[in-house]
């Protein structure tokens, strides 16, 4: 006996200390979502209590022993109206409140820093603007809005950070996005929550929230030597995009400077906003949307560039916007210890560690 009990005791202690009932609130949206959650829990408890009280008290009052003969009642419009309108009203409150939160979670603020995340069976790859690259982990600074642009290389995945109360599906062939502002430094779970095959349950990782200082240190220590835009620049050169996209007067393709965020008029008569998704599509399916004034000569790069490669190209093109570039450079620089974030001018990319080839699809 005396030998067994310490074992059991240890077991219980281990269990109880490792026992969670509510997830940590580590983002700005978390307490807002939890307020709604607890409101709904409260309403549910009241509703459930009413149902249980009605059933038990009627069961006691009108059991056959006490009440041998039933009194027939057809119904009551007043009562029925009550229990139609009150639940409806409460549900509508939840609907509006929920919609407000939903819009907040999926509408990133303009100054959010952007991290690309690529899901594949069975890992998460994060691409930071400074060129930092991580697998199954994500380092973010506390107190800054971070936008994630997600895409999947194969099947549906879903990027879930319970402590932040955010989640977004990573879909093949399409960017989706979500944002958060982490508040409390620490390490939190990262899960893939959309079933994605064999090792779905191993597609997990850590989200590490760092204080701004620690984050700077982390950025410096995990830099790969070239920013994401610089990688894109190399690809741009090695795939000879510049053969058509140059600023020369006789260029066969449009200039890509300032194209990000601009309105493009297509030969089909539509106008589109050139956002991330459009840029991606313009590279992979150019024949789907031809910009007015140009011939449909751009070849498709489908199957030739990896998802990360496309991301690097998109990031590079985004940075060609001068305003944006300034903004991006300053935001990246003030996080970086030295001036590493600055994109090198085109043509100077020979110095990179592993230039062209990076980002290409390995056949």
């Amino acid at each position: 006996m005396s030998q067994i009990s310490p074992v059991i005791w240890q077991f219980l202690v281990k269990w109880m200390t490792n026992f969670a009932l509510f997830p940590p609130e580590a983002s700005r949206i978390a307490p807002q979502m939890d307020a709604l959650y607890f409101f709904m829990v409260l309403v549910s408890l009241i509703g459930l209590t009413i149902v249980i009280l009605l059933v038990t008290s009627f069961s006691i009052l009108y059991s056959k022993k006490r009440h041998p003969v039933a009194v027939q009642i057809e119904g009551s419009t007043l009562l029925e109206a009550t229990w139609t309108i009150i639940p409806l009203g409460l549900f509508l409150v939840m609907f509006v409140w929920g919609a407000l939160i939903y819009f907040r979670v999926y509408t990133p603020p303009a100054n959010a820093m952007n991290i690309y995340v690529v899901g594949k069976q069975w890992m998460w790859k994060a691409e930071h603007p400074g060129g930092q690259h991580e697998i199954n982990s994500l380092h973010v600074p506390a107190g800054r809005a971070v936008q994630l642009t997600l895409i999947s290389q194969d099947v549906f995945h879903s990027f879930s950070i319970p402590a932040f109360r955010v989640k977004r599906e990573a879909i093949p062939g399409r960017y989706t996005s979500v944002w958060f502002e982490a508040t409390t430094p620490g390490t939190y779970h990262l899960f893939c929550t959309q079933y994605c095959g064999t090792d779905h349950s191993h597609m997990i990782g850590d989200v590490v929230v760092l204080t701004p200082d620690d984050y700077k240190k982390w950025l410096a220590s995990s830099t790969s030597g070239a920013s994401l835009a610089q990688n894109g620049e190399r690809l741009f050169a090695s795939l000879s995009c510049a053969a058509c996209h140059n600023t020369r007067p006789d260029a066969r393709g449009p200039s890509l400077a300032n194209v990000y965020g601009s309105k493009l008029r297509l030969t089909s008569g539509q106008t589109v906003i050139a956002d991330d998704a459009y840029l991606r599509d313009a590279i992979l399916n150019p024949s789907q949307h031809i910009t007015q004034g140009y011939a449909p000569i751009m070849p498709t790069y489908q199957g030739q560039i990896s998802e990360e490669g496309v991301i690097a190209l998109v990031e590079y093109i985004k940075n060609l916007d001068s305003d944006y570039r300034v903004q991006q450079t300053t935001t990246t620089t003030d996080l970086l210890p030295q001036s590493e974030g600055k994109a090198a001018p085109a043509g100077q990319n020979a110095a990179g560690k592993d230039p062209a080839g990076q980002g290409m699809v390995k056949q």
Partner: protein
Amino acid sequence: MSSTIVSLPDQSTARIPKVNFLTKENGLLSWLLTGDHKRIAILYLISISFFFFIGGALAGLIRLELLTPQSDLMATDTYNKVFSMHGIIMIFFFLVPSVPATLGNFFIPMMLGAKDLALPKVNLLSWYLYVAAGMLALYAMITGGVDTGWTFTTPLSTHYVNTNVITTGLAIFIAGFSSIFTGLNFIVTIHKMRAPGMTWFRMPLFVWAHYAASILMVLGTPVLAIALVLVVLERTVGIGVFDPAKGGDPLLFQHLFWFYSHPAVYIMILPGMGVINEVISTFSRKRVFGYTAVAFSSVAIAVFGFFVWAHHMFIMGVSNYAVLVFSLLTMLVAVPSAIKIFNWAFTLYKGSITFETPMLYSFGFMGLFTIGGLTGVFLGTSGTDIHLTETYFIVAHFHFVMVGGMLMAFLAGLHFWWPKMTGRMYPEKISQLAAVVTFIGFNFTFFPQFILGTLGMPRRYASYPPEFQVLNVFSTAGATILGVGYLLPVLYLTWSLKYGEIAGNNPWQATGLEWQTQSPPLTENFTEIPIMDHEAYDYEWLERQKEKEVTSVG
């Protein structure tokens, strides 16, 4: 005053009527070629019970694996196959046919005062399709299984797994036709076969609920069939409708699948709600409170049920405005469910209540369905859905409605009509115990999963972080209790076939036409076509009938 309404004939003289639908003809062939809706119902009952126990065994394996955080009992691949087959079997081969194909099949014609369903041969065909589909699904399971989950999400199911997707898809396709035919048969029967005097608003609410469910089956299932055919075509010839590399849209599959599968959840609950109406009314000796509201709420659920499918896709990148609309509609569809709960509660008001097993199961249903429905609202609220979707919260939600709701209702109905179907009573005490054990086991199993989901534990995980273990152990322990709760009825119901007390025509003193004839019924149900000259749930009419009998005999 006794605390039961059971009134059985004198056991020393009573016997089961010599001629009834069970004894009319003998031999296996007389069953396999029967057109009798009651025999087909029995065939269905046996087959769905078989599948329920296979699905249940798989559930046991899932819970065993989740006892520990590591995936140690089986490889992740095996685990994935186990939960996929569990879902597929329980949904398509147990829950969808459960109440309609057994109790509905048996009692809709009798409640309407008809001799059979409108299309007896089609009814038999449904059962054969069901069996063929079931065998195909089992074959797929034995020869390697399938690991896509019951949702067959593309492009996983089309390009990334090499398990038996096509065979399983085909099995579900065939099962779909079985349920389309059942639905069609019910609709035609309800329109055409009602006895004289049986107006729409004199029909038992059980029939109304099946009418609504049948509409869902007939209109929804073809869309599932199309989705599955497209998956098969995509896998075999690569037509590319779901493949972004070929200009297809991977979200299209989600739309098609949920366009069926949301209505399907109501196919899986409406018939159960129908059962609850009959049981609660009978055991409180009262007409269902607000008959018309309850009848229309079934139809409202069926109609709105078609317009909420995208609430399964809130985080999949559908447009924000679509999310608004679908979230709002989901709120609207939750209201008729709330109405029903309160109407049932008020049916008890000023009744004369007894607590036989079917009533205990019905109380269980009311409590658990309330929780299931309310947590559905957590998920229909777009903001909180972001956090709760794809976690154990969803798993808990749908088990509360499907197991706490539909399975409880099925058991309530099975016990309620058992005397009519077999002519014998089930043993009351032990079955009350089973009802209580089921209720306790259920809560132990599934309530912790709400907390797990809120903590963020993803569904369909073979392994999980250690801090989730305590709640998972609770859940597995509860599942063991639940298993006992489900085994008991198998034992005592089988026992009762031989040793149960003789039930007589109407042991519960219920008002439905099915109770005004012998048990088990004749093949043609009634000796003469009944005339419905009173409202549904008219207990005073029943009293007058009894008096008449006494005076005519005496």
